[in-house]
């Protein structure tokens, strides 16, 4: 017998299931007023610095059907590239939002601040991006991906540069559709499959 390790193993994931909304977004599930204050309604907690943007999109399954039940959480830094909780962060920005596909047409809307670039480990500049975590019935472990922006300089981003097949980079880049408006579609499987992350 070799020596024993002291480290533990992560608890295994299980699907969030079709009723995830009652747990995380009670108002969306038809249970408004369950809590005094619902979590993740908006990352904007007051007057925020920077540009407020709207990202609209859908989550498509492998048959190109826009899923009606997808739930997404986002996490990002503020307009200056500072993460909430860190020194100098915008006090009116929480960085976190929960949003869901519309039950009628499958479209979601994320209203937030456009994030700034930030310097990561080793001084490497990360292009502005929003991290996403997607759950739904049939998704056995939450899927991580990122939203980048077509009107930003993404050339030196360390993550985008790790994507071997260059056309796949486009699956992580939101397209500008108007002033402060972007389109970002997520494809779980098949043609145009989104790059999902293991970070």
């Amino acid at each position, binding site marked *: 017998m070799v020596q024993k390790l*002291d*480290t*533990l*193993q*992560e*608890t*295994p*994931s*299980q*699907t*969030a*299931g079709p*009723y995830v*909304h*009652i*747990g995380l977004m009670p108002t969306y599930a038809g*249970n408004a007023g369950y809590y*005094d*204050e619902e*979590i993740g309604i908006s990352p904007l907690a007051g007057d925020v610095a920077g540009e407020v943007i709207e990202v609209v999109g859908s989550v498509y*399954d*492998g*048959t190109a059907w826009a899923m009606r039940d997808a739930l997404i*959480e986002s*996490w*990002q*830094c503020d307009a200056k590239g500072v*993460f909430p*909780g*860190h020194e100098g962060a915008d006090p009116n920005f929480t*960085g*976190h939002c929960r949003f869901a596909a519309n*039950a009628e047409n499958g479209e979601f809307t994320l209203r937030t601040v456009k994030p700034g670039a*930030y310097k*990561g480990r*080793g001084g490497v500049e*990360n292009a502005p*991006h929003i*991290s996403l*975590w997607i*759950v739904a*019935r*049939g*998704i*056995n*472990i*939450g*899927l*991580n991906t*990122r939203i980048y922006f077509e009107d930003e300089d993404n050339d030196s981003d360390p993550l985008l540069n790790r994507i071997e097949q260059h056309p796949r980079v486009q699956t992580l880049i939101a397209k500008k559709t108007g002033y402060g408006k972007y389109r970002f579609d997520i494809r*779980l*499987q*098949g043609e145009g*499959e*989104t*790059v*999902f*992350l*293991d*970070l």
Partner: protein
Amino acid sequence: MTDFITQDQGPLIPRNRALHPAPYDPGYKTSVSRSPSLPLLSMESSLSEETGPTFGHNKFGALDNNLILNWSKGAAPAVGERILVHGRVVDENNRPVPNTLVEIWQANAGGRYRHKKDTYFAPLDPNFGGCGRTITDENGYYEFLTIRPGAYPWPNRGNDWRPMHIHVAIYGHSFGQRLISQMYFEGDPLIDHCPIAATIKDRAQLDRLVAPLDFAKSRPLDFLAYKFDIVLRGRRQTMFENKMEGM
């Protein structure tokens, strides 16, 4: 709190995906068209994964972790077997995860969810909403008072049933630790028949989701208790983490 801050720095230990269900599992039919077919892009975590939302500033109600009373705002108790679900959130380094949000949701005693999409003919309980939330204490402990959820049938193969289960969502202290899982109950025969439970192929891993009956925490003439501990991803902690670039 210095130790707490140190614990929350540095890269996350890469996720061991062999412990988790595979995204594609034909026994669970919905996963077939909802699973990526291309490999995930694996990289070391960055600030985006090593930071995460905090909820200390949010307003929590006194009944938020009491599902027996929180839907009726304390007016009348829910129907069902009263149970306490308690446990501890730790990370892979076996350090407690304090001040983190734990959220749960579940069916009522008849196996029906209070969700506009649930059409099962077991009736709704007017005094049961089915969700709760709490923040772990300084040692990572949490508690919920609730009722034992009912098993229920679901459309998959010809005759599939979900075992009694409670959904659990946890943040940890960083977005990369985010996890959703399900707690099952010791002794439930339906666990062995459930295609969702069976997405975890290693029985020893599945057993980690089965909460044992905990008589020591049960309150006589009031409730039974079940213990459910949760392990989140940890941080790499070696003396070489802060080495200068290129050395």
